[in-house]
């Protein structure tokens, strides 16, 4: 969709200032872009490349490595249904089929109203609570098909205010004043690390 908006550019500069090398801010800025648009747009990647002084190809290389950075628009709610072994035994696949029919989309698809994206995922670490799914990476446990319908209805009617839109970062934002930051020094200025120096033969 778009480049970072002015408020996020200000935030981006603050994030970049936390690191001795600008490039280190790449992943935090990708998160910021995903929060802004719900996904990481090409324009945003180009903008980030300018901000951290790398090429867009390098930003794409990093962004595409991480599956949770979406490079195409997704729904407000990303529903990840687990079909791994424990959930499969407890009805995970039936849950996924039910979700497909209810929402009218296949895994990877997004509903026409842009509200839901469905994904078929591997284990999401809640095997004791199978079958389970995540909505924007927040777990829902032991779901029957009725539970699923109720969940979707709640999401549609806005009753689940505890689940923010896809891409939203933590509600508690960290702002470290410049004087309270740990010493940020460029690695090139660090000299030889002590552990390395101790292993070098003494100069005669």
């Amino acid at each position: 969709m778009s480049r970072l908006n002015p408020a996020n550019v200000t935030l981006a500069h603050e994030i970049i200032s936390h690191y001795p090398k600008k490039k280190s801010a790449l992943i935090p800025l990708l998160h910021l872009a995903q929060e802004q648009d719900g996904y990481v747009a090409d324009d945003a990647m180009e903008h980030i490349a300018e901000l951290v002084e790398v090429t867009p190809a390098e930003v794409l290389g990093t962004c595409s490595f991480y599956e949770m950075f979406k490079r195409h628009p997704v729904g407000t709610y990303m529903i990840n249904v687990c079909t791994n072994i424990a959930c499969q035994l407890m009805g995970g696949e039936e849950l996924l089929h039910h979700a497909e029919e209810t929402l009218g989309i296949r895994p990877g698809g997004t509903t026409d109203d842009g509200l839901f994206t469905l994904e078929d995922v591997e284990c999401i670490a809640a095997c004791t609570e199978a079958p389970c799914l995540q909505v924007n990476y927040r777990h829902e446990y032991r779901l029957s098909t009725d539970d699923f319908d109720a969940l979707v209805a709640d999401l549609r009617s806005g009753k689940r205010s505890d689940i923010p839109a896809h891409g939203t970062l933590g509600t508690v934002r960290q702002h470290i004043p410049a004087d309270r930051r740990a010493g940020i020094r460029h690695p090139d200025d660090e000299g030889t690390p002590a552990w390395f120096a101790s292993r070098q033969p003494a100069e005669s």
Partner: protein
Amino acid sequence: MTATEETPTTTGVPFTLNGVELEAHEGENLIDACDRLGVHIPRFCYHPRMTPVGMCRMCLVEIDTGRGPALQPSCMMTVSPNMVVNTESEATVKAQDGVLELLLINHPLDCPVCDKGGECPLQDNAYAFGPGESRFVEEKRHYEKPIPISDLVYLDRERCILCDRCTRFADEVAGDPLIHFVDRGAQTQVNTFPDHPFSSYFSGNTVQICPVGALTAKPYRFKARPWDLTGVESTAAVDSTGARVAVQSSQNRLVRVLGVDSDAVNWGWLSDKERFIHEATDAEDRLTDPLTRDANGEFVVRRWVDANRAAGEALSGDADRIGVIGGARLPLEAQFLWARLLEAKGITNVDAQLGDGLDPAIVSGAPRATIERACNPGGVVVLLGADPKEELPSLFLRLRHAVAEDGVKLIELTPRASGLSSYAKARLHALPGTAAEVAAAISTGASAAVGGVDAAELAKAAELLGSGAPVTVLVGRANLAESPDVTVAALSALHDLVPDLAVLSGLRRGNVHGAIEMGLTPNADGTEAILTAAVDGRIDTLVLLGADPMADVPNRDLAEAAFAAVSTVVSVDTFNTASTARADVVLPAAAWGEVDGTFCNLEGRLSPLAAKVTAPGQARADWIIAAEVAAAAGVDLEVTTLGETRARMSAEVDALAGIDLDALEGEADGPLLAGDHAWSLSAPSVSVPPVDGYGLRLLVDRTLWDEGTMVHHAPSLAHLATTASVSVAPGVLDRLGVAAGDTVSVGHANGSIELPIKADGRLPEGVARVPYRANGFDAGALIGDGPVVDVRIDRVGS
């Protein structure tokens, strides 16, 4: 640790290779040591000029460092004392077989239609080390068949084995990381960012180092099969770096040029210009027949004897009324013969440069540096000239490696940030005309900015130059709109500060250093003076040796007036140019790839030029033309073969003493010309007028892709030529109240022209840049007689 301390430092590292006790160098990479000792280990990702990454796992060998044998990638292992290496053990063979089987899972078996087939490391290694058959019956990975990743390179991702060679090259050698691994796991692929093509000047190298057929070059795709090719070693003559190349042809046509690894020069890398410019040799409108004018002034095809007689007559007139321009593109042998001919005729109005170079005293009057000296770790390099990325790209790669990896410290004394700027330790972006003042201010120190350069940057430069490290100055022509005297004066000021500096000449044109050594140099002020004399009626015959003053002399009005004034023009050239069109006698010469000869690069290093194909029509080698024209002019040069010419050269030219020009082929680096130069430059005085309040000072420089004759005639490159524009610093754009892309009027002393405007963050304020020989407008029209040019940019319609 104790073992190494006890071993005398003079010996190498003892280790056992396949049961034989051998020695490696201290810190030597195992795969390099094995290569040196004659044991071949198969590899895909390892390249001796790049950082090892251990991506492909093909070079797994069994290594025992005292903890029992284990499989290790040999490209990632430094030989350690008493290491036991087995490259032929059962485990090694099984591992290599397994790696190949895995690599071939997704690699398509389309070798019969693949350009790499027949010279493919994957094919070769599969035959030598592979399983012979696959157990994989599933569907292979599919991608869209070749996608263009730049104007010159296609990528077939199905064939890619993810060795990281091209992406590593782009990142660490070229410094253009525009291709990268995208996605991950089984989906990993090399790709560009959408709409950001791999538009690197060096993209062709990725094709050469690709170990499979994934990257193919557009100019060579489906042109020939490797087993049809024959090749010779030669030297790239498109610029003066003299990169070593292998020239390959099929059916008497040049089809491919590959870089050859020379330690002293190009390390195996080439720019795309050096790699693909051979297309021009094959161009349709090559000159094929000798031409003279008939009574109506029309060109007629003549026999060589008649054309030679006409040329000989032209050279037999009053020697003072003849001017000779060019010769920088000729091989050394032809330069020698022309110089002897002109000497015999007493012709002294000679210049191999076209007014866009520097006083050749830079080459002969200053201690000469080699590329090796400039790139030696610990040294300081001053860039006083054009951006090497644009003019001397192979040299740029060497310098880039030196400043980025080897700790060579760079001082930029240029009108705008160069391609090396991000590595520079001091950036002195002097306003055109002020380089000498800025150079002088380095030693005296300054409290305020000089020529737009901060006092802080001056202090940094002073510290680097005063550090006692060896200083090399790369001198070239940074700004064609500025008098070359400014550069010489700046060099002189640097010499006052660092008396033992050495100079690496940045004169860019092909074999210009050979021309200078052979004596095709001006006795007075060079091409501009010759052309001025022609305008004044003191010269009435011009002889052009592969030169096109109508397109190459910066002061275009002067060239035009000179051609209009003279009565006879003799042109020896390979192409129809603006100048041959105005000539009276045209002699067609054989081009690069069609003649044997010798090349002298900017260090004074000699290397062979080799003939691979025959010249079109009646075109002849330049040395033959020189000898025959001499005979027609009544001068016997006493040579009938190239060998005799070389024998004369060795006998008569001091710098060639002891060098056997017949034995250059096969020499890895090539000998340097003999002779040490003492400092003998004197600082010219230039008075530069102050900039007026509204003006911007003009910078005219070259880009790699321009409307030059060779680029223009190479079909794959012609469309890359830069389009005309005027660029200014982003702040100036705001001040002028125009947006990037708007058309503005550029006012100069002789009128004004309209150009689109662009922002360029590499320019300092107060400077406007127009590329030389761009597509659509040639900046030569802006350049006049003054030491600098001031222009005024206005909005159109205001």
